[in-house]
């Protein structure tokens, strides 16, 4: 066995430059592919993490039809026993209760429609860092009767901390909810949509104002490791006996997961195209190596070399050429990718502004998973096996007598 490997290895280096050029094409393709995959998956991981931290959490519990109808009529009541059970699920990091509704807010002769969120101030800031986003005034406390407004909203209404607002909305069971409320803090969001429409009350005050004591519209749950999502989700479902709806981030933001899928698919298609081109290069090289050795094959077979052994040698040659490229590419990539994972590339210019406007950091994050490397190895292996068919078929059909004269 080792003799054939040795034979194949030596055959490769009979024309060094050709072998190296073919291997180099694989080498560069693998590096490009790995860089691209690393950037894409890094970006997805970042997007998912940023978007769950922006508001939703990894998992949410709602009243049955709340997510569809967004009505206080579909709100829910939880008890301490259930919350304790949730806390005891392995991997659950944080449980954030919310009371969310829409309402009109006026100051002077200006009125805006806003989303009002009743929050548990301490828990909320652990999930969304809300307290750090305060730009003036104070953060809410548990029994606070004031309101925290998003900065864009405050600008539109031309109000500051210390001014009063009138809230006018519809409470539970259609009861009118109206109150005059003091602005105690202003909070700044990077995402313009949030910045122009969000406001926060303390949970207990919001429940009182909208005539829904003890009721919640959602529980947002943060987990330690996204890998445990499915298990934790089913554990949570058991706690509520299917009485309430439990949704994970994929269901909460279907547009996020689908945008990721679309982007991922287009990335894979591009790599596919790149590898097709590389496959032609390898195939061409193998074909040339076969064609120039017709005479040699003829002699070998006539002196008694078995055809299948010769075919085996040519398969080894193909594998060697491709795998020199793959392994060199993968090994060179590892430190590069790890470096970029630790130091994401900062973006500048218009692109950075656009990304910041979406509420994300202007960086290109990288991720490194072993699966990415294996994907390249399998792809190149497949290319090598298909290319190796050519010399195998060629040798099978070879007539030694004619070949020797060629």
């Amino acid at each position, binding site marked *: 066995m080792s003799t054939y490997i040795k034979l194949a290895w030596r055959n490769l280096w009979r024309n060094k430059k050709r072998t190296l050029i073919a291997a180099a094409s694989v080498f560069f393709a693998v590096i490009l592919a790995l860089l691209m995959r690393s950037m894409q998956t890094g970006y997805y991981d970042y997007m998912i993490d940023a978007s769950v931290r922006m508001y939703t959490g990894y998992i949410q519990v709602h009243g049955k039809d709340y997510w569809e109808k967004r009505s206080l009529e579909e709100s829910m009541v939880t008890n301490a026993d259930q919350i304790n059970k949730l806390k005891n699920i392995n991997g659950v990091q944080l449980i954030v209760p919310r009371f969310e509704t*829409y309402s009109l807010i*006026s100051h002077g002769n*200006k009125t805006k429609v806003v989303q009002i969120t009743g929050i548990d101030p301490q828990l909320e800031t652990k999930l969304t860092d809300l307290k750090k986003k305060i730009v003036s005034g104070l953060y809410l406390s548990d029994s606070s009767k004031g309101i925290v407004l998003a900065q864009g909203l405050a600008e*539109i209404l031309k109000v500051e901390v210390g001014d009063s607002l009138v809230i006018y909305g519809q409470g539970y069971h259609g009861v009118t909810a109206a109150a005059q409320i003091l602005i105690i803090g202003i909070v700044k969001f990077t995402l313009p949509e949030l910045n122009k429409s969000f406001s926060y009350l303390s949970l207990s005050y919001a429940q009182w104002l909208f005539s829904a004591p003890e009721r919640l519209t959602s529980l947002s749950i943060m987990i330690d490791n996204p890998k445990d999502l499915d298990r934790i989700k089913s554990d949570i479902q058991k706690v509520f006996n299917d009485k309430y709806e439990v949704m994970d981030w994929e269901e909460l933001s*279907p547009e996020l997961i689908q945008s990721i*899928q679309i982007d991922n698919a287009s990335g894979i298609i*591009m790599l596919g195209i790149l590898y097709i081109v590389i496959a032609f290069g390898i195939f061409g090289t193998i074909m040339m190596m076969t064609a*120039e050795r017709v005479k040699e094959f003829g002699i070998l077979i006539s002196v008694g070399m078995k055809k299948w052994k010769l075919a085996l040698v040519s398969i080894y040659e193909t594998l060697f050429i491709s795998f020199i490229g793959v392994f060199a590419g993968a090994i060179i990539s590892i430190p590069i990718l790890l470096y970029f994972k630790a130091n994401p590339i900062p973006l500048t210019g218009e*692109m950075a502004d656009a990304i910041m406007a979406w509420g994300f950091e202007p960086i290109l994050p990288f991720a490194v998973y072993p699966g990415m490397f294996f994907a390249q190895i399998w792809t190149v292996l497949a290319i090598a096996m298909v290319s190796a068919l050519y010399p195998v078929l060629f040798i099978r059909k070879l007539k030694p007598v004619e070949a020797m004269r060629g």
Partner: protein
Amino acid sequence: MLLTLAWRNIWRNKKRSLIIISAIAVGLCCGLFASATMFGMWDSMINTTIDRDLGHFQIHSKSYEEEKLLTDTIPNFQNIVTKLNSTKFVAGVSSRTIIEGMASSAATSNGVRILGINSDSEKNITSIHQQIIKGSYFGEGWKNQIVIGEKLADNLGIRERSKIVLSFQGVDGSIIYGAFRVAGIYKTESSVFDKTNIFVKEDELLSLLNSKKISNEIVVRLSSVQQLDSVYLPTKLMYSDLSVKYWGELAPELKLFYDMLLTQMYIFVGIILFALLFGITNTMLMSVMERVREFGVLMAVGMKRSRVFLMIILETISLSFIGGFAGIILALIFIEYFGYVGINLSAFTEGLSQWSLGTQLYTSLPFSFYPPLALMILGTSILGAFYPALKAIRLNPAKAIRTY
């Protein structure tokens, strides 16, 4: 002469030449088709955004930009509308009254953007009237009709002919309620748009407001986007005290991504050509090594080295251009076919809807993409030929002649 020679040389080893030609053709074809798919996607995104809402350009008062309040109106708007209507290339002008308010059904309420429109002039601007899925776009018969999006209808739990109460702030600051009945439900490519935008008749909204005719927004649609500069720029100059913005300024992220797209496509095709470079170099290197003796003879009988060099370059260029043309023609066939039939992407409806994309994708690629592409292919082939050609002219004729 040299070209004929080069051309004949290519076909001396047909199989080898065909492999590299097909590599170039397939690589380019795939690359162009993928680019056309992306381009078609963004093209349709921009077009649907323009058709649905933006028009080609819009006029607001400067304060409306920031505050988006009902009271930020355009002074003398009727003169502007009349003037624009008689301008060449203008296909439609519509004035809108826009209020942010709440829409409530018996069950629940939602924040909405109320657009008071003239349904006749609006039809020339937006495609909403073609996207009605239930009911009609303001029929005859009853007063206070309203047209809402499917997503909002679902959220509010209402159907066609259901009652809906709008509450919003009037001109003087008081809260005004108005009962409307759903005349039609529309569905566009964007779920976000469908959730927040509702249409009522301008005169009915104004009578609720107890106000004379006002306008927050004038939307202009041209007969073609090519006329943008000839209408938009003079308008912008004429009304310098108002904010006049074309779609790219109204949706800057769309414009930015669109601009980046072209760069992205060049990079992508560049990567493919880079991969092809190795194949080209390898093929030409083999071809040169097979012909060492021939080059020796050519140089010995007096062919200049520069001409040998040029011959090899020409061989490579011809090789690449055969592949290049085959690839471009193949790609054009695919792009035209799928540009006509479309690619069905209904599996990704929600994600596409978030990006304001339809589920049917039509491929397209601007023709301005092709000339730089030809240059890129030329550059690649010269780069690929360089090393083999150098190797050929470095041969020592005396030794080369004796190489078998």
